C-alpha cells in the first residue's frame, strides 16, 4: 500500500483536485451559466494561502496558531473567492452564453496580469517555499484533504439539487424567462450558484498552494479555464459525477501518456478533439444512456450556446 501511494498518490491527489475544480465550474453551469472564472478564484485562494503562509507580515500569527494556520488559509481562500465571486458575478451575470464566457475570460486575464505585477504576489516568479500543510511528509497525503472535501462537495451538490434552490437553478437553466415568470428570481439564484463555485475554487486554491509548494500567475490562466471546461464537458455537464470523472481523467491523461514523451501534449489535444466529437453528452452522460433502456425523452433544449446569442 505504501509503495502504491508513493508511486501513484500524487497522481491521485492531482485527480481529486482536478475533480474539485471541475465541480466549481459545474455549480454555475447548473443554472445554465457558462463561467470560465474558476481559475481566477482558484488563483486568488492560492495566493491568499501562500501569502499567509510565507509573508513575514504574518510570522507572529503563524507562531501563535501553529497548524491552526492551515484551516485559517482555507477560510481566507473561500471567503476571498466568495467576495470576488459577488463582485464579478453581480455585473457579469447580466450576460448570457458566450458573452458571459468571454467576460469571465477577461476577468481571469486581468487577474493574471495584476498578479504578475504586484510585489505581494511575487511578480513573475511567484511565491515559493510554501510550507506543507500540517507538516505532511509526502505529497500523496494531500489525499486526506482533497478526498473529504470532494465527498463533502458531492454531498452538498446532491442536497442542493434536491432542494428548492436546486429546482430553481434547473428551471433557470431550462428556460430563464419561464422561471422568472413563475416567480423564480433568476439573478439571485444565478449569483448564488456562481458564488458557490467561487467559494469552492478559492478553497481548493488555498489547499493547493502548499500542495504545489509554489504559487505563481500560471495557476490562473486561460489555459486553466479551458482545461477545467474541457474536463466538465468531457465528463458530462448534467450530472455531479461528470466533472469529477472528467477532471480526474484529464489530470491522469498526461501521466498515463508519459511513455509517449514529447508526443503526449499532441495526443492530449487529440483526446480533447475526439472526446468532444464522439462523446457529446460526456462520459457520464454516455454511461447513463447505456444504463437506461431508452426512455421516451422530451427533446432537451441545448444548453446556453453561441448560436442562441445570434438568434
Amino acid at each position, binding site marked *: 500500500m505504501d509503495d502504491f501511494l508513493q508511486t501513484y498518490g500524487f497522481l491521485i491527489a492531482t485527480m481529486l483536485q482536478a475533480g474539485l475544480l471541475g465541480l466549481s465550474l459545474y455549480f454555475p453551469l447548473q443554472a445554465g451559466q457558462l463561467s470560465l472564472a474558476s481559475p481566477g478564484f482558484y488563483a486568488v485562494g492560492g495566493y491568499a494561502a501562500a501569502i499567509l503562509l510565507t509573508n513575514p507580515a504574518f510570522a507572529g500569527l503563524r507562531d501563535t496558531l501553529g497548524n491552526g494556520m492551515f484551516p485559517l488559509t482555507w477560510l481566507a481562500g473561500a471567503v476571498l473567492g466568495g467576495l470576488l465571486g459577488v463582485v464579478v458575478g453581480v455585473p457579469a451575470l447580466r450576460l448570457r452564453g458566450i458573452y458571459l464566457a468571454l467576460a469571465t475570460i477577461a476577468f481571469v486575464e486581468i487577474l493574471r496580469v495584476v498578479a504578475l505585477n504586484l510585489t505581494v504576489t511575487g511578480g513573475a516568479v511567484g511565491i515559493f517555499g510554501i510550507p506543507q500543510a500540517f507538516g505532511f511528509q509526502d505529497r500523496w497525503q494531500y489525499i486526506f484533504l482533497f478526498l473529504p472535501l470532494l465527498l463533502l462537495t458531492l454531498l452538498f451538490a446532491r442536497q442542493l439539487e434536491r432542494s428548492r434552490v436546486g429546482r430553481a437553478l434547473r428551471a433557470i437553466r431550462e428556460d430563464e*424567462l419561464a422561471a422568472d415568470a413563475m416567480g423564480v428570481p433568476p439573478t439571485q439564484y444565478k449569483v448564488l450558484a456562481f458564488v458557490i463555485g467561487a467559494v469552492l475554487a478559492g478553497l481548493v486554491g488555498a489547499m493547493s498552494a502548499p500542495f504545489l509548494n509554489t504559487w505563481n500567475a500560471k495557476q490562473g490562466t486561460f489555459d486553466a479555464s479551458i482545461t477545467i471546461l474541457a474536463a466538465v*464537458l468531457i465528463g458530462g455537464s448534467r450530472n455531479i459525477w461528470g466533472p469529477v470523472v472528467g477532471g480526474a481523467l484529464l489530470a491522469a491523461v498526461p501521466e498515463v501518456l508519459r511513455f509517449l514523451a514529447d508526443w503526449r501534449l499532441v495526443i492530449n489535444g487529440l483526446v480533447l*478533439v475526439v472526446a468532444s466529437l464522439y462523446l*457529446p453528452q460526456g462520459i457520464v452522460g454516455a454511461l447513463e444512456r447505456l444504463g437506461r433502456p431508452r426512455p421516451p425523452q422530451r427533446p432537451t433544449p441545448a444548453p446556453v450556446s453561441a448560436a442562441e446569442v*445570434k438568434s
Partner: protein
Amino acid sequence: MEFSQFVQSLLNGLAIGSVYAIFALGYTLVFSILGIINFAHGAVFTLGAYFTYTLVVGEFSNNGLLKGVALFPGGSPLSGNPLTFALATLLGAAGAGLIAVLIERLAFRPMRSRGADPLLALVSSLGVALVIVNLIQLLVGAEIYNFPSDAYGETPPALSFTLGGKIVIIRTVQVIIFAVSLVMLAVLGYVIGRTKIGKALRAVAENPTTASLLGISVDRFIVITFFLSGFVGGLAGTLVGTAFGVAGPYFGVTYGLKGLAVIVLGGLGSIPGAVLGGLVIGLAEAFVPAEYSAYKDAVAFALLFVILLVRPQGLLGRAAIQKV
C-alpha cells in the same frame, strides 16, 4: 504627454491595431457563419508566420525533428527581396488558410452534422490548437525564430520628422502592416459586400437552412469562410512576426485572446466591428504610459469587460433579440 509622443503613440497604435483588426476578422467571419468561436485561430496565426519563415529561410536551425532539413537546395529563392518576400507571405497565408479548412473538416464538420452543442466545438478547437502548437514545438523546436532582417529589403525608416524638438519615427514595417491591412480589409469588404460569393456567404450566415433550400451549397461556403479566416489569420501572423522579428510556438496565444476582446468590443459577427475593435484596442495599448507598460496586456481585457457590462452587443453589433 508631449505632442511628438502623442503622434508616435498614435502611429504605433494604428499599425498594431490594423493587425488586430485583420486577425480578428478571421474569428468574426467564422462566428457569423457557424456561431462558434474557433479557438484554434491563434494557432493558425502562428502557423502563418512559420509557413512564411519556412519559405523564406528554407531551413530550421532549432532543435526539433526537422532540424537541418533543407527545403531548397542552394538556399531559398524567395529570400532577400521585398517582392519575393511578399510572395512568400501570400503563400504562407494561403497555407494557413488550407490548415483552417482542414481544421473545419476534421474538428467541426463531424460535429455540425450531428447538431452538437457549440460549446463542444469550443473544446474541440482548443484541442486542435494544442495539437498545432505542440507539433510546431516537436518539429521545429520551442525556441524563437527571427525573421531575416532584410525580409522587406534594406529599408530606412519610411518617415522621420521632428516635432517640437523630438524625433518621430515611422518604421517601414509599420507602414507596410498598415497598408496591407487596409488592402486586405478593402478586398474582404468588397468580396463580402459586392460579389455573388459574398451574398451567398451572408445568406448562409443569416440562415443556413433557408440558404441551402435556395440552392446554396452550405458546406462549400463554410469551407470558403474557413479559408478566408485562416488566410487573414496567417497573414496577420507574418506581419506581426516581421514587425517584431520573431515567431515561437506560443506566439499566437496572446493574439488569440486579444482577438476575442477585439471582436466582442466591435460586436460579435460584425466585420466593421472587428476593424473598429482592432483599432480601438491597438490605440488604447499604444497610449498606456511607459510606467504602467507592465499592465498593457490587461488593457484589452479591461475594455472587453467594460463594454460587456455597458453594451454587451459591442460597439457595432446588433442587439440580440431575446427569445420569448
